[in-house]
């Protein structure tokens, strides 16, 4: 059952999964990081409180986060096709992954930014820092360890989503698990796929914690 061809397939699936996960995480952060900061800054306890902006952006984030991923996957197919020219394969999966992950990332970033000591922000304002300077020179660097832990959580969550995309031909390990393990009832293949996914989650989480601890100057 596990012949050479099968292992080749698994290897390719693994690469696809990593590709989807990493590219989606990066793009989710390109969108989610500024949005999360915007949410933290415009919060009523933030440095530029703006209930209107906060409610609108927060509302969009909440709506996107409450759509189950499997439904989003199908619902955004026209958009996916428009952007990538296809709705199957791992590149196509990146589109719904980013749409689903960016709001999640935004909330993670927001909560990390809010952990930064209010006093430090006040001190930087007392030295004449602008809102932008507070974000770039205080919030981001001071929240760095927490942001990295958040990134590990985001990556593993996106990994899980990417496996789900196997149902609609998304490629990767999830696709193999569904095609062979579910449709052909080859339970052993399914188990191997799950084991590999568990292993990847462990690795990402450990790397995240390690970097976070390493760069956190509060721990000595």
């Amino acid at each position, binding site marked *: 059952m596990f012949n050479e061809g099968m292992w080749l397939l698994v290897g390719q699936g693994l690469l696809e999964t990593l590709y989807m996960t990493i590219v989606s995480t990066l793009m989710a952060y390109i969108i989610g990081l500024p949005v999360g900061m915007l949410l933290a800054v415009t919060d009523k306890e933030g440095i530029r409180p703006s209930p209107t902006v906060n409610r609108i952006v927060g509302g969009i984030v909440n709506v996107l986060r409450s759509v189950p991923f499997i439904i989003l996957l199908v619902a955004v197919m026209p958009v996916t096709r428009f952007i990538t020219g296809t709705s199957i394969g791992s590149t196509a999966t990146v589109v719904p992954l980013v749409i689903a992950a960016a709001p999640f990332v935004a909330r993670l970033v927001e909560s990390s930014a809010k952990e930064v000591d209010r006093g430090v922000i006040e001190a930087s304002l*007392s*030295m004449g820092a*602008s809102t932008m300077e507070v974000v770039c020179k205080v919030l981001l660097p001071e929240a760095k360890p927490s942001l990295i832990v958040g990134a590990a959580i985001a990556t593993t969550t996106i990994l899980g989503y990417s496996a789900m995309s196997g149902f609609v031909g998304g490629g990767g390990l999830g696709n193999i698990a569904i095609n062979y393990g579910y449709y052909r009832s080859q339970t052993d293949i399914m188990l191997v796929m799950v084991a590999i996914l568990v292993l990847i989650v462990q690795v990402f989480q450990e790397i995240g914690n390690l970097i976070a601890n390493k760069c956190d*100057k509060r721990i000595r």
Partner: protein
Amino acid sequence: MSKIPTVQINNLNKTFGTGDGAVVALDDINISIYQGEIFGIIGLSGAGKSTLVRCINLLEKPTTGSVIFEGVDITTYSDNQLRKVRQSIGMIFQGFNLLMQRNALDNVCFPLELVGMPRKEAKERARELLRTVGLADKEKAYPAQLSGGQKQRVAIARALATNPKVLLCDEATSALDPTTTQSILALLKELNQKLGLTVIIITHEMKVIEQICNRVAIIDNSRIEEIGTVDEVFRHPKTMAAKKLIFPKGEYVEKISGDGKYLRLVFEGNSADRPIIANMVLKCGAPVSIVFANTKNIDGQVFGHMIIKLPDDEEVFRKISKYLDIENITYSEEKDYV
């Protein structure tokens, strides 16, 4: 002291919230602080002193009233102008508020980055400042590796980086032990004398005021109750709020009941050898009772004050006041509260 105050607070009010839920934090505050002064603002927690100091650099916007900094009303300034002004007003805090992910040197560099000073120049300046505060060997240390006193020294160096005219200290020594408090106060005093820095100190500790302030304002219930030189206010506190602060509860403040006159005698370095009270009793032939006394003998001189109760007799009072005048002892009659 120059004639124009460095910081002048005029009819300042601050209310949090609106309508029924409104809380008055500051009520008609008027203070003038002059260049080179160390000015203390003392009050119990909740009196409004932290809000007041935040109104000086407008971290807190006053509801009404104005803050004049070096002759200019900065309450009318735009955000951009305010950021510039804040570079001339340093601030240190009870919680130090250092950037935890930056080492001591980079913390001091932070305000210099904000003004766009080139990195190399900023590092030079930061090193010089760390030397000034006595931490030349700690430039690579992160805040987590420093003690409370050292953290406050870094914070002071950081606050001074942009050569401010005024340094605001918000309970800057309240989180420190007595010895460290002493050394931080000594440093502030030194900076005040060396740089001509105007220092505004917010505290709830009498000792801080006593030790380094020239003038003091007592704030209670959102209002300034008393302003004067430290000597004046501490020796002859006029208001209830001042007395409460200077003589903590139970030790001193009591409502006077019954007949008789109460006199407060103030000893300002009289000889400890002279039996002043005993002589007074003998010379004036009056039985007085000592209601309260808090005196210290320092190098053979007496400092402190004492409350005595006299019989309700004008003649005795005249004799005693004459005696006290001759002995050169300050006294005042106390009513309602002692």
